[in-house]
């Protein structure tokens, strides 16, 4: 059993967070949790009964892991350069993204695009679990799922943002969106100054995953 749970653990949690990382999950990585045992038991049953093969499961894990924030970055960059696209994106996000980028958005969830302005800075969390706009950003980072981020960002968002290096003046309203139900949120960050004349592809390189969660601002141009 121990072999299986370790095996499982290696596949589902990145080990990119050292012990000094303040955003590391509280899960210590050593304790065998009930959910891990349950997952292993169900997976072994499915395999033994011939419903799924090990290869099927790992193909799906690979497909999930290969989704990246690149699509989200393209969406943001296009919104920066094309006002008509931005208007449609804000009004009907998933349909507009599917039509414009030719990517089917087969999800029962609703996407809401939260536009940052000089007066409002948005940041997204799911206090109940780890709801995240996976259709655009892929798998959420480990810190997004951590109890620490989820519990603190709703209580002291400015302190948490400062720990991410994002310090905003007091006349900017910090607006936390808690994805409690059937909506998923993408932050549309503000276009950085000094990017006039940059191409859409160059702009997309400035759009980081964290800037679409709201914990950071886009990169400054070189």
């Amino acid at each position, binding site marked *: 059993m121990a072999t299986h749970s370790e095996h499982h653990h290696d596949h589902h949690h990145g080990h990119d967070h050292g012990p000094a990382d303040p955003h590391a999950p509280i899960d210590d990585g050593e304790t065998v949790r009930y959910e891990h045992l349950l997952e292993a038991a169900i997976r072994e049953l499915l395999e033994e009964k011939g419903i799924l093969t090990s290869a099927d499961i790992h193909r799906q894990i690979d497909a999930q892991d290969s989704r990246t924030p690149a699509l989200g970055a393209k969406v943001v960059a296009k919104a920066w350069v094309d006002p008509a696209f931005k208007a449609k994106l804000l009004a009907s996000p*998933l*349909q507009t993204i599917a039509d414009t980028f030719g990517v089917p*958005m087969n*999800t*029962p*969830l*609703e996407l*809401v695009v939260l536009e940052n302005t000089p007066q409002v800075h948005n940041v997204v969390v799911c*206090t*109940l679990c780890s709801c995240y706009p996976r259709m655009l950003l892929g798998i959420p980072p480990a810190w997004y799922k951590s109890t620490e981020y989820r519990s603190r960002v*709703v*209580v*002291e*968002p*400015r302190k948490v943002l400062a720990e991410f290096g994002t310090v905003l003046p*007091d*006349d900017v*309203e*910090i*607006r*936390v*969106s*808690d*994805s*409690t*139900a*059937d*909506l998923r949120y993408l932050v549309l960050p503000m276009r950085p100054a000094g990017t006039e004349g940059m191409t859409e592809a160059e702009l997309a390189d400035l759009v980081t995953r964290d800037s679409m969660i709201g914990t950071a601002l886009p990169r400054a141009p070189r």
Partner: protein
Amino acid sequence: MTARPPRPGEALPVGTRVRVRRGPPEFHCRTPTYLRGAVGEIAAVVGYYRDPSRLALHKPGLPMRLLYRVRFRQIDIWPAYEGPPADSLFADLYGHWLDPLTGDANGNA
């Protein structure tokens, strides 16, 4: 994309002040404990969705529940909030967890 829009008169209008119900402590109801009893206002009407607390019990999730985006001021959730008073928090809450308020600005009837 699957939300059914409400018919006229079914939804609380945008701007309505509401108080989040304190209970019952349903399993998987999607109403966070930290917002129970808090006063906010309707920011948007999203539409009808299946009831998550019923879906969690493998029921069909009926009746459908109206989902709202509700805006709270941070200082109305956390009395000791240290940031500016304009800071806010939005949550997605189902209508059967919200009581409309008709009283004063503090939510006192």
